[in-house]
């Protein structure tokens, strides 16, 4: 697996883990059911225990315990990576993340770092039901001392692909704790190469930090001035790209899409510039609506642009449990058609 060509988000993340384990003996991967031939529930860790048996630790079903243990390992110089099998189970690790790992650097007055990366798949549309389908990352956004990342399915200019590079850098190149938000359906997506994006102009903002967690802006080449900016991350960014394409070709509504890979701390410069041109903003996320990521993005944009922000919309999951039944689940989570419908209402 690790030596086969990188085609999908899953391949890219797997290769990123492989490279981090190969390059840095401080890296240790902990999690449930990681050993080959199983290689983790979603196979992101497949092949790793065969090649790096000393750096992969399969654990009991003890999410809080292994996350807390990773915190202790990081304080003593290692760079542990924790795989939490389903994003829903991040509730079990919240005390370890918020009161321990994210606190150590500040509460010990900068004398220590706690470079833990916690990887986990969020998201629904697989029929897993109420407790295995949620997107709970919003509960971890805004925790001081914690970075929250979500990859985008671009290939980019790195041999690992953009998702793998983001994960590699999070593991090896930063001392800050990271919650790395993956998505079950995103795993299967092909990485978009230049040839796939030939219709689009793609701008990248690597931010001002040494650690690169880029923000991307995509727009259709030679399109008329955009009337709306879509912003999203993770799997929703893929759906938003699809929606942007259909809006252009089916409705002659032209948008720009800003994709975030760093959800916290926020990096919205590129978004502010895009919205200052278009005037309207639609945020799209798979988590539930109330107090969501999009609410903060809208608030920041309004504060920065003032009357330059003329209209806002938000799309998110309906409030309530995510049903197993496919039709009910689809009605609960925002899809491409929902993005198109809302965009049409707004312009």
């Amino acid at each position, binding site marked *: 697996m690790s030596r086969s060509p990188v085609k999908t988000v899953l391949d890219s993340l797997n290769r990123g883990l492989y490279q981090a384990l190969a390059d840095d003996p401080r890296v*240790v991967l902990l999690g449930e059911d990681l050993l080959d031939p199983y290689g983790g529930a979603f196979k992101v860790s497949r092949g790793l225990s065969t090649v790096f048996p000393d750096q992969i*630790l399969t*654990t*009991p079903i*003890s999410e*809080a*315990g*292994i*996350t*807390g*243990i*990773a*915190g*202790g*390992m*990081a*304080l*003593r*110089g*290692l760079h*542990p990576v924790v795989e939490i099998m389903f994003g829903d189970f991040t509730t079990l690790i919240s*005390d*370890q993340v918020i*009161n*321990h790992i994210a*606190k150590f650097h*500040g*509460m*010990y*007055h900068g*004398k*220590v770092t706690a470079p833990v990366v916690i990887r986990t798949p969020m998201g629904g549309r697989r029929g897993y039901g109420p407790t295995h389908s949620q997107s709970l990352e919003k509960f971890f956004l805004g925790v001081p001392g914690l970075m929250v990342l979500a990859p985008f399915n671009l290939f980019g200019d790195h041999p690992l692909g953009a998702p793998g590079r983001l994960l590699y850098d999070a593991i090896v190149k930063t001392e800050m704790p990271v919650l790395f938000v993956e998505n079950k359906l995103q795993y299967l997506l092909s990485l978009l190469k230049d040839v796939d994006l030939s219709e689009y102009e793609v701008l990248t903002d690597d931010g001002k930090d040494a650690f690169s967690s880029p923000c991307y802006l995509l727009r259709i080449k030679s399109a008329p001035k955009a009337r709306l900016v879509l912003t999203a991350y993770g799997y929703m960014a893929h759906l938003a790209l699809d929606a942007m394409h259909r809006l252009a070709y089916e409705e002659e509504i032209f948008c720009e899409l800003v994709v975030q890979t760093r959800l916290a701390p926020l990096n919205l410069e590129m978004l502010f510039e895009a919205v200052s041109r278009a005037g309207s903003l639609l945020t799209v996320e798979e988590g539930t609506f109330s107090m969501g990521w999009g609410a903060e993005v809208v608030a920041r944009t309004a504060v920065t642009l003032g009357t330059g922000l003329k209209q806002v919309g938000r799309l998110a999951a309906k409030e309530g449990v995510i049903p197993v039944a496919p039709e009910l689940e689809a009605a609960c989570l925002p899809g491409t058609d929902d993005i198109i419908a809302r965009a049409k209402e707004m312009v």
Partner: protein
Amino acid sequence: MAANKELFKKLYRIRRFETVLLDQFKTGIFPGTTHTSLGQEANAVGVLSHLRKDDVVVSNHRCHGHFLAYGGDPQALFAELMGKPSGVCGGVGGSQHIHWRNFYSSGVQGGTVAMAAGMALAEKRIKSGAIVVGFMGDGTLGEGIVYECLNMISLWQLPILIVLEHNQIAQTTPTSLAIAGSVIKRFEAFGIPTEELDTSDILEILPVAGKLIEQVRLETAPRALIITTARLGAHSKGDDTRCPNEVESLWQLRDPIAIQAARLPEMAFNQVVSAVDAEIQRAFEEALAAKGSLQ
């Protein structure tokens, strides 16, 4: 004789620190609150006297005694409690969140056991030869993560000594209202060899702790030590709901300072007391004089 005097000095330094701290709290120079080690001094000294330079200590909210027994500077701790930049953690951590050299404490119950386990795993992986001592209280037995970690500590044979300071009361809740079943069997069920002591006498704690630490070191394997002890002070400052007669009786029977003092000739006792009183007073005054927002 000389050893007894030295041990008494180590115990009395903690006692004096905590006494001055509580006394000065009334003047308003310390923000927040504090949890003192009154009555539990012999646990700290009895265990930590055996550590080597590279060993790691993880402590909890009641950490002053552990910090001082580890070798921490009383002036830096006073300054930390005053919220001064010259404090151990620049006044950010305060009473419960201390880090100096290989000493770490934190205030959320249970998580420190995970921290300690992770550190022991790290030391084992890098083959440093260092061991970890993790302190916890009986109240912490209510936290689920403790059992997750006891399991992994044993499963992965981590070089750690868990010291359970069983003072029989968690804040205001007595053990009888909080703990079912056997405490020692909790550890033994996970396959962690465990010793139990019911004493406040440093001379009883010292050899048992030494033996267990040696075993952890030689076998790279976990051990646990349960010390039934007595909290002679309040949980924090003024929140002792126990019957005054009960507390008075503990002072009579379970005061580690009095137990060890009885072994010293009067002159040696007086020498230690006056030297330590002067040292702690100087530490307090220097901490107070240091620059800080509360000047």
